[in-house]
């Protein structure tokens, strides 16, 4: 067994903090009540350092570092909320909103969305960048769940939870750059996936409304197509 990692002391936002040597800046900060925004991070999954919201400033370095992967070091001085960082975070969120079709008012995850929460927390009232408005499909072939690419931010939490926790590796990415697309198996409809166990973990970890449970969408609204007697009578040939 390897020896326990040494304890390090460091400064986060002017606060003296101690952490174990294998802890990330993010872990140490949260343990001490300092919040750093994240989107792709989820406790228990491997870190990818992709969303760049958790970037922090380190004294003595011009390069910003992702708090989710950067390990603590003795004597480190971390700043988590400078005007520069906040500006970048707002821009990153703006870029996400402009990238696909995020329309909160008609989204299944309205009020339960981490992207929306982050936007609110960062005071985003509008997006300055041109909306790209791509034409993206919805995969509703699975009997219980659905995938709406328009709301996907490519954080890959679903990919990781499916691979690392469920062990199915149903999800992966296709293509690159802005054309990246979440796919199940070898780009087959989700409902036809051989590997999907329908465990629903991906739906639970999705930060937005991209992956959702169909029964939780229309389920609450009871529809009554028979309420117009006129239609019933027409169907039955009574008129």
């Amino acid at each position, binding site marked *: 067994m390897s020896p326990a990692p040494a304890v390090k002391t460091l400064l986060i936002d002017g606060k003296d903090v101690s952490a174990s040597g294998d802890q990330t800046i993010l872990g140490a900060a949260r343990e001490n009540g300092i919040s750093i925004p994240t989107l792709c991070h989820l406790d228990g999954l491997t870190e*990818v350092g992709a969303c760049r919201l958790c970037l922090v400033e380190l004294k003595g370095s011009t390069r910003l570092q992702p708090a989710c992967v950067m390990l603590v070091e003795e004597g480190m001085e971390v700043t988590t909320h400078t005007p520069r960082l906040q500006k970048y975070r707002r821009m990153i969120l703006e870029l996400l909103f402009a990238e696909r079709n995020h329309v909160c008012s008609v989204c299944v995850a309205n009020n339960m969305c981490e992207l929306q929460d982050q936007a609110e927390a960062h005071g985003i009232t509008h997006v300055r960048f041109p909306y790209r408005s791509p034409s993206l499909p919805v995969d509703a072939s699975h009997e219980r769940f659905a995938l709406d690419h328009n709301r996907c931010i490519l954080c890959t939490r679903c990919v990781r939870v499916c691979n690392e926790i469920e062990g199915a590796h149903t999800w992966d990415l296709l293509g*690159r750059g802005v054309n990246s697309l979440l796919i199940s198996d070898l780009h087959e409809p989700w409902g036809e996936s051989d590997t999907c166990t329908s465990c629903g973990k991906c739906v639970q970890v999705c930060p937005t409304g991209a992956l959702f449970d169909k029964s939780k969408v229309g389920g609450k609204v009871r529809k009554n197509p028979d309420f117009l007697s006129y239609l019933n009578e027409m169907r039955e040939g009574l008129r």
Partner: protein
Amino acid sequence: MTFEELEQIATDARAAKETFPRALNVCVAAGCLSLHSDAIKSALEKEVRRRGANCRVAGTGCMGLCSLGPLVTREPDGHLLKNVAESDAPEIVAKLNSAMPERLLYSRDQPFFQRQTAIVLENSGRIDPEKIEEYIAAYGYQALLHALTDLTPAQIVQEVSKSGLRGRGGAGYPTGLKWGTVAKTIGTTKYVICNADEGDPGAFMDRSVLESDPHRVLEGMIVAGYAVGANLGYIYVRAEYPLAIKRLQVAIRDARRLGFLGSQICNTKFSFDIEIRIGGGAFVCGEETALIASIEGRRGTPRPRPPFPAQSGLWEMPTLINNVESFANIPTILRRGGEWYASLGTNKSKGTKVFALCGKVRNVGLIEVPMGTPLRQIIFDIGGGVPEGHRFKAVQTGGPSGGCIPEQFLDLPVDYESLKEVGSIMGSGGMIVMDDSACMVNVARYFMEFCMSESCGKCIPCRAGTAQMFELLTRMTNGTAKLNDLDLLEELCDMVSSTSLCGLGQSAPNPVLSTLRYFREEYMEHIVRKHCRAGVCECNKLAEVSA
């Protein structure tokens, strides 16, 4: 293999060459080959046979002056023949012992050749890249034997450090320091990787080296393996280089045959082998962590560093990863000494650098100059300047990660620091010369499109940011931009370069930033007057309609 055996192979190879009083070397690297130099070689062979001439016809690597290809060199007088056609074969063979016709001759006294210093390219165009014996005759594998029998791994690292060699892939990290780090990292299994995923537009240095002198790279890698304690090396070469791959395969096979690869190399305890991995066409796989992911069979996306590959690289083992040109310098450094190498170049950038000179310049081709050579000398003396009727405007170095350098900096000595100071980078060595027919906004847009389509999509700033910058630049070129868009563009440049995960995103705004720095008035003309002075952008049509 001993020094005596090596010397014997060299002597035999030289003797075999000398049985012919004359030789015709035909360039069969990709540039000339695309002009069917293989047919010229067959025509020359046929003609030699027909006349019973006592002449040897051989295929060699790149001779440098690609724009005048197909090229043929006549030995032993070294006369260079340009624009050779199949129909010239009878005349060339007939005049083997007399003066060649003027129309074919290109004098080696021209500055193109005189101003160059060849280290990496010393054998390029002189030896047959598919014959290991010819490489040995040109002192090949002596450095390896010297390293394995006379030097300790630490001494090799010291020698490389002493040479001052810096990473030729573009970032310029001291090679000796990198080797030392990997050598000192504790681990039973280590790897050496050669990055041959050259992808910058306008860059063909690594391809030419691999096509013209593959053994040089292999020798550098084997020495590196011995120095850092690795037993397996990978060459990651892009699939778009089929000829380089073929020649590497031949070279690896021949090196195994003579015992330079395999177990107990040259009767020492050291074993090393090299495998080729072929890239699938993603530019981002030139980034070291993405390259490693690709070799491991995963999606080629970068991961945050640290840990650096020197500590945790391929399969989480300590990994040395260097560029083709870095490895190609090693045999000469060991043969002639680190101090000798350090005597070339500038204070902080030692040795020579290979550049692929292209664009609006007379002599398009592959050149090698000492570090610190002024840009003016490269473009106007060696390159022969911009063709008639046009004026030099800027030179683009470093590909999509680099920038455009305007005329006022032409006397700048080319090294890592000075290029950075003026907003560009050394990069891997692509050098694109632009004249007044180039629109700088359009150039920036071109490179942004490249970065956008080559972004892996992992981190948001690069994925969505490059797409937004491309959209804003497109508005400028098609005349729909507003002044506000310029502010947005500059904000995005700052943000994408500060927050992106890997070098691709961090440097993607460079072409925009450098053109904004030196050609801001062109941006303003596009936005305010809907006018493109070079006449290449769509916005001019709009201006005509409204006028």
